[in-house]
């Protein structure tokens, strides 16, 4: 099983990026729509010539992140604090996920980035280019061919396998935050398994909407112990979290990493008389005909005509190719 960057003892390729490259050039090459500062770009001064270390972060930082990842894997669902580094991109653009990916990648990896299921959004393209430039890794849009997949808002439709790593970008790691803003208190609740509040949230949902209306970031209990925020994936994806691949979650601004090891029990919280339902739009994909995928609604003309297509663009394209 490839643990990629977790494989200790594998020599790191310092300065794997193009030697002599200046930080602002790399940064300028990442086409982020939001502003970023050159100060954020930083550079590893320990590397001669000012070149980036392999995958941008210096070795000490990567080791620190790997320790956090290993601890996260050892305690599934537990939020491990880590010293998040400034990255040459603003918070909210996946700095947590990028740092986790940087700590996992090896030169042999094949890297895929998806944003809302698509490989071609600005965010996905930027992160993919970032690692092409700083790590020189091969990139792919094929889920099955990727060894490390960084994602925002989706789990790929193609089932992941042993040896793959799925890295989630997480905005708010604390599932109890919305009802209990004090971090000292939420930490104690996790420590004491005091999770009544989580069901209060679901109770409120039903009281107000007649059903559990939470459609994204639907809370789960991991291996019967920690309640965890799965990041803003649709609840449709929740059942997929019991998978063969390693799942790692990185929250940059909040400085937390957590993990789900392969084949871990992940249960979506619910009530006996209001059981969890993954849910899905009552349509088939207009492009590939799939009836079992998460669909995006697309407005096709000014008259408001709409069609439903797979949000996972690689999955949809692969199915269309197979049918052709």
């Amino acid at each position: 099983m490839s643990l990629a960057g977790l494989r200790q003892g594998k020599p790191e390729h310092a300065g794997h990026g193009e030697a002599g490259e200046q930080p602002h050039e790399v940064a300028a090459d990442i086409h982020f729509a939001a502003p970023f500062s050159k100060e954020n770009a930083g550079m590893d001064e320990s590397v001669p010539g000012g070149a980036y270390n392999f995958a941008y972060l210096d070795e000490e930082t990567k080791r620190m992140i790997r320790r956090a990842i290993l601890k996260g894997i050892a305690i599934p669902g537990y939020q491990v604090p880590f010293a998040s580094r400034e990255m040459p991109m603003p918070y909210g653009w996946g700095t947590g996920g990028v740092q986790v990916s940087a700590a996992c990648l090896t030169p042999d990896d094949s890297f895929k980035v998806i944003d809302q299921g698509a490989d071609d959004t600005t965010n996905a393209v930027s992160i993919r280019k970032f690692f092409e430039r700083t790590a020189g890794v091969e990139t792919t849009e094929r889920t099955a061919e990727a060894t490390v997949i960084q994602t925002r808002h989706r789990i790929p439709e193609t089932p992941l396998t042993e040896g793959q790593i799925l890295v989630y970008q997480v905005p708010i790691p604390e599932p109890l935050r919305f009802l209990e803003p004090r971090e000292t208190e939420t930490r104690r609740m996790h420590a004491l398994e005091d999770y009544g509040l989580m069901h209060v949230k679901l109770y409120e949902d039903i009281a107000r909407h007649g059903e559990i209306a939470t459609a994204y970031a639907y809370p789960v209990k991991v291996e019967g112990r920690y309640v965890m925020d799965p990041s803003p994936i649709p609840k449709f994806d929740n059942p997929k979290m019991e998978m063969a691949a390693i799942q790692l979650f990185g929250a940059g601004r909040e400085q937390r990493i957590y993990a789900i090891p392969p084949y871990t029990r992940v249960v979506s919280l619910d009530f006996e008389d209001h059981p969890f339902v993954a849910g899905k739009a009552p349509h088939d994909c207009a492009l590939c005909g799939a009836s079992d995928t998460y669909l995006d609604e697309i407005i096709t003309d000014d008259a408001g005509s709409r069609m439903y297509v797979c949000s996972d663009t690689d999955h949809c394209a692969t199915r269309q190719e197979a049918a052709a």
Partner: protein
Amino acid sequence: MTPLLSVQGIRKTYGFRIGCTDVGFDLYPGEVMGIVGESGSGKSTLLSCLAGHLTPDQGSVVFDTRAEGPRDTVTMSEPERRMLGRTDWAFVHQNPRDGLRMSVSAGGNVGERLMAVGARHYGQIRETATDWLGRVEITEDRIDDRPRAFSGGMQQRLQIARNLVSGPRLVFMDEPTGGLDVSVQARLLDLLRGLVREMGLSALIVTHDLAVVRLLAHRLMVMKSGRVVETGLTDQVLDDPQHPYTQLLVSSVLQV
């Protein structure tokens, strides 16, 4: 009979200042004890020590637990103490904002303790919440409203329902009628008295208001400068106070 709560030698200091010291008493099932004194007398510090919100420097607070009999709650593990705090114990704060979740509906507030101990049937939780709202005179059509839409007296009644829903055996109350209008206070006291009797609750009520203890408490403990200066049956203490401080307290009420 085993006391429900047996308190011995409680002392809490803040640096050189004494919060409370040398406090001991037994509280028996179904008994309501009033702790009276002026502000700064140490009564609130004492209540916090007894309820596990503060750790006393010395002393023991032995509670007769359902499962294992008498246990010292001071030395018990935090998870155990917390479990007590959401099952057999209840705490009614003076300010309902401290005891309610203001962003959660009345039904959610009442249901939280049920869910905390594993209730997972929405319909049953709601039914119980409805029942409890009724018992504190909040009509069913307010069940989905948030507490900030309630009057002060109604918020306090909601806090009481939220606490009593788990069927606790011991209720700590910190100035439960403080900050309310006199007419609202009277109604709340009537309600509390009814519930205490009906449920056979034991309670510790901290207050500076002798009218509250006159109506609710069987026994009284008078505190001054962190120490207990007089104890006894409520009527006895109020009608025939022995300690000069108690005499002063009682006479100051009579003068009003």
